[in-house]
């Protein structure tokens, strides 16, 4: 069974202090790795999909990268509005989307 482990569980940064979140996965065959952002009381909001090792995607202050065993979400010069829980997920099966999620990293950016 596919597994996804995220670290750290929680991270506090000062505004402007860059850092990275980690997502380690074990899959029989990667069919997409997904990053979502979840705000309190809301549903997850899609950020990125990565398909193959070496792929990178960027959106504003966020950049996601992928290797054969893990993905990183790099946050550059974060702002308080970047505070949220960031979820990583892998697709477990072919021909459909059956996402296996990690437990998330709760990110807090202090002004």
């Amino acid at each position: 069974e596919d597994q996804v482990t995220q670290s750290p569980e929680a991270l506090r940064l000062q505004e402007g202090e860059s850092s990275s979140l980690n997502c380690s996965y074990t899959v029989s065959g990667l069919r997409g790795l997904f990053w979502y952002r979840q705000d309190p009381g809301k549903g997850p909001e899609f950020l990125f999909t990565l398909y193959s090792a070496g792929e990178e995607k960027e959106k504003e202050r966020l950049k996601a990268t992928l290797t054969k065993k893990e993905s990183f979400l790099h946050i550059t010069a974060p702002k308080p509005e970047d505070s949220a829980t960031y979820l990583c997920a892998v697709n477990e099966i072919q021909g459909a989307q059956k996402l296996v999620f990690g437990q998330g990293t709760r990110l807090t950016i202090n002004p």
Partner: protein
Amino acid sequence: DTAVSQTPKYLVTQMGNDKSIKCEQNLGHDTMYWYKQDSKKFLKIMFSYNNKELIINETVPNRFSPKSPDKAHLNLHINSLELGDSAVYFCASSRGTGMGSPLHFGNGTRLTVT
């Protein structure tokens, strides 16, 4: 103009009762899902429908029964509620079943069973 809407947002009920959660999406998607987020915040898939056909049915108690009257709606009916059913239930939709179509989630229904 909410893309994926769930009702109710909060549901408090007693053990043994039967309840339903409704989900509607206005994105024109043809695939819908139910996910459960437990107290440890893990999101786990329960069901998925594509064009009203059940395509993913995880190991959940048969007290849980999804129903998709059309492509825009996926409801979840739960019989004989138990304390362990307390969780946040999320509905989601996507355009098709391929990897290139990300899931769009609703804002969840917090179910509390007392």
